[in-house]
């Protein structure tokens, strides 16, 4: 009996039902430009599987740009381009025969500001990725929506109003809805671009808790300018400055005994 209860609890907060495979990422000499602005200058880092990796650094250091290079969102900005190799599950996502649309399906993303589709219900927001990819089977959709909302720890709050607009939720709930929406297409990696910076402290903690929970099943990369957040949520941390990766290592080391002077200056609040 106890066993059964526990299974139910695990089922509720786990993304395991959705994520059938996850993978690490190897970035090799990634450069990025906005027109003539050289925003990333040769980033190489290995993002380990099934853990939260944080990227910190002051505004304009290129951390978001790097994140957007990991799912080929960077090149959507007019005038933007990137070079280098990004290996997802061993394959270079920048190799010429790779379809960026498929890369974005495999590497999901959650944005700074919660952005549920305003014309869609809670249900349709979560189902959007599958529906627009042509999935019509009602049973499949129902199941994925429920699993995704469970995984995003939102199911209990919205299960009785799935047909209400996604925008009727609070900011924190909207962000978890966006996480559910991203998980629904079964990505192999989840990128989070300052996912809590528009939220109140309580909602922020819930998102952090969720990120840690999700990392049991899926690789997560989180960009944040909040160092406490990086310390709370991540296993490894990379520090970016002026488009370069200054230091990368275990979060504990970065925050307690950084090797680089610039890292220390940043985390002790001397700039940024």
């Amino acid at each position, binding site marked *: 009996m106890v066993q059964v209860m526990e299974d139910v609890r695990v089922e509720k907060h786990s993304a395991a039902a959705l994520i059938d495979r996850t993978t690490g990422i190897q970035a090799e000499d990634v450069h990025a430009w906005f027109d003539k602005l050289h925003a990333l200058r040769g980033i190489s880092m290995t993002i380990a599987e099934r853990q939260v990796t944080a990227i910190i650094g002051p505004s304009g250091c290129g951390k978001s740009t790097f994140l957007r290079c990991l*799912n080929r*969102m960077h090149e*959507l900005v*007019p005038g933007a381009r990137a070079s280098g190799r990004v290996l997802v599950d061993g394959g270079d996502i920048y190799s010429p025969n790779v379809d960026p*649309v*498929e*890369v*974005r*399906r*495999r590497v*999901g*993303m959650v*944005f700074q*500001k919660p*952005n*549920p*589709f*305003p*014309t869609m219900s809670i249900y349709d927001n979560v189902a*959007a*990725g599958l529906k*627009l*990819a042509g999935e019509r089977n009602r049973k499949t959709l129902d199941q994925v929506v429920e699993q995704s909302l469970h995984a995003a720890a939102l199911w209990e709050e919205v299960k009785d109003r799935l047909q209400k607009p996604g925008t009727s939720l609070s900011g924190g709930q909207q962000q978890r809805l*966006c996480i559910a*929406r*991203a998980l629904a*297409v079964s990505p192999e990696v989840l990128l989070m671009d300052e996912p809590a910076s528009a939220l109140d402290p309580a909602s922020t903690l819930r998102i952090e808790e969720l990120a840690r929970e999700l990392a049991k099943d899926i690789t997560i990369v989180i960009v944040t300018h909040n160092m406490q957040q990086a310390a709370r949520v991540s296993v490894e941390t990379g520090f970016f400055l002026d488009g370069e990766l200054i230091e990368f290592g275990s979060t504990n080391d970065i925050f307690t005994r950084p090797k680089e002077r610039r890292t220390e200056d940043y985390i002790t609040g001397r700039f940024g």
Partner: protein
Amino acid sequence: MSFLCTVAVLAPLFLILAFLARTGLGALNWDFFTKIPGAAGEAGGGMANAIAGTVVLIGLAGLLGVPLGVLGGLYMAEYPNARLTTLARFTADVMNGVPSIVMGLFAYVLVVLPLRHFSALSGGVALGVMLVPTVMRTTEEIVRLVPQSFREASLALGIPQWKTILRVVVPTAAAGIVTGIMVGMARIAGETAPLLFTAFGNRFWNWNIMQPIAALPLQIFSYAISPFDDWHRQAWAGALVLVAIVLLVNIAARAAAARQVKLR
């Protein structure tokens, strides 16, 4: 001071409406909406065919102008830096300023001359071409208001750009696009000049788009310059009905606009 200015601006409008209502209402009756014009000089008859004709012409104009305008507007909004966009925007602005009789001439050369006769189709083409720039610019403006974040959210789910535009961007802007279409239609509903040598007018019922068709503005024009008192009265009634139609479409446009998702 500003109050006086407001009154000064609104006064002529209300005077026109009041005068129109007073004169027009007197000639409005059941026959006006159900009968076609009587023989010249004879009292009685109505403008049923002209009302229907105007609806047909607006419908034809919509079939031509709405898809072109909406697709053009979408293109301009989604590819703001394309050379074609600059060209299209400039063209739309010029087209907005082209006298409407020139549009009639355009349709005359394009449709009437090759077919060798006037037709509802040519009138629809003339009005449809006039509809394009209005719909195009309003569509562009509302679609540009759709925040980039919604596009990114969709693209990040692995949804191709064309599907993102059709299934995320367009629904988000839909009410605004519909408003633009309705305002454009209200504008062309009262156009007379482009129809003079295209739709041409018709004293009888016609449902064949290859034949000349009646239209309210044309009917008002020919009745107003006729020598018969009864026709003058009917011209006023026609004008009143035309204004009422335009007003109704505008109210519908406002209702559609109210349903637009807030984008700012």
